């Protein structure tokens, strides 16, 4: 869910940018130079996620997968998503330049929250249980993202409140889909390469 330039009020833009900057700072601190290839490659996988369009009735939605990214990367999700979103703004016009901070916060903060929420769960020995936590993470991240988008809109003025109220129901189908997709992805990783989830984070 990208918000465009010009819609949000300055206080919201500024606080979004500041909070994102803090997140990115923490993420960069936690990321060694040795991890750069891993994070760079994973960031591109999540860039690719955004062009996997799944049909939904007559329309279609694209994957976001910030929950899974958070589970794998933790705080490093902030810099990874900032870079991905920046490239999407500049080369594809998704979102806007000044709202980059808000957009990054809206997608990366849920990822980090999910990391703490599901950290134990996805590292469970049973693939099934781990996958259920993965599903919770996938759906939960979208839920928090939608909530934050709604907040950013509502805080920007009376006139956006209705739009803000519409955001949450509009995201329910995406939540369901991401839940199922994350379930399968975590299940696969767990059976095929369990050391990845336990090792690939810091």
């Amino acid at each position, binding site marked *: 869910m990208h918000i465009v330039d010009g819609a949000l009020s300055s206080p919201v833009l500024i606080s979004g940018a500041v909070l994102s900057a803090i997140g990115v700072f923490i993420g960069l601190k936690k990321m060694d130079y040795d991890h750069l290839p891993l994070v760079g490659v994973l960031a591109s996988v999540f860039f690719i996620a955004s062009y996997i369009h799944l049909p939904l009735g007559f329309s279609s939605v694209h994957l976001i997968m910030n929950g899974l990214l958070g589970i794998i990367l933790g705080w490093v999700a902030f810099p990874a998503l900032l870079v991905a979103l920046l490239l999407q703004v500049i080369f594809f016009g998704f979102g806007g330049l000044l709202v980059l901070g808000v957009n990054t916060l809206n997608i990366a903060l849920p990822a980090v929250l999910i990391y703490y929420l599901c950290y134990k769960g996805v590292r469970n020995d049973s693939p099934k249980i781990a996958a259920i936590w993965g599903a919770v993470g996938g759906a939960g991240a979208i839920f928090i993202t939608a909530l934050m988008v709604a907040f950013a809109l509502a805080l920007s003025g009376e006139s956006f409140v209705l739009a803000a109220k519409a955001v949450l129901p509009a995201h329910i189908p995406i939540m369901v889909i991401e839940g199922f997709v994350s379930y399968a992805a975590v*299940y*696969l990783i767990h*059976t*095929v390469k369990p050391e990845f989830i336990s090792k690939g984070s810091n």
Partner: protein
Amino acid sequence: MAYSNKPLIKIEDLNYAYPRRGSVLNAVNFALYEGEKVVINGDNGAGKTTLLHLIVGLKKAKKGKISGFGEVCETEKEFNRLRVKAGLLFQDPDDQLFCPTVLEDVMFGPLNLGFTKQQAIEKSIRTLTSLGMQGFESRITHQLSGGEKRMITLASVLVMEPQVLILDEPTNALDEKAKARLLSVLKALPQAMIIISHDKSFSEQLATRQLTLKEGSLVDTEATNQTIAVA
């Protein structure tokens, strides 16, 4: 050999070019008849894989006509129907295996065709057994050896009971033992086949007809050999 006179797959005047590159295929004509096992040779980068992908509609031709089982295929829907009857084995087994376990991967096709889970499992186990891969059901695909991966991908195509098999360098990455095994399996299969292979002895033992893809068009291998011998 007496072929039934209707071709299973027919290609007329097929052209293809990748963006920012010269043309790869240039007026290719080809027909596959019942019972044939056609081997296509060709240098690296000649466009063999591209040709196979065009046949099943994974890429769209710039010009030319593809018909499968009597129907001209143009839309994605028509090609989807063709793909059910013409199973394609990819050059790199890793691209084809995306499920965690062997059984799930083999079941993927039947589930797409609308079979129930129970039916899909039964079909898959039957196919695996017929290829001598029983006991592999719960093995993890990513950890199989190259030869095993190849056999599983073959199973996952055969389980859909295609009338035509299209194999892209099936002996790639196989050692001699696995190759011999694959050869005997393929020889025993009744389906018509299009096979890409660099392996001379393999193709000679399998082929009923050999073609070479050269400079964008398909020519008889013997013809090219003769010209080489003359030159």
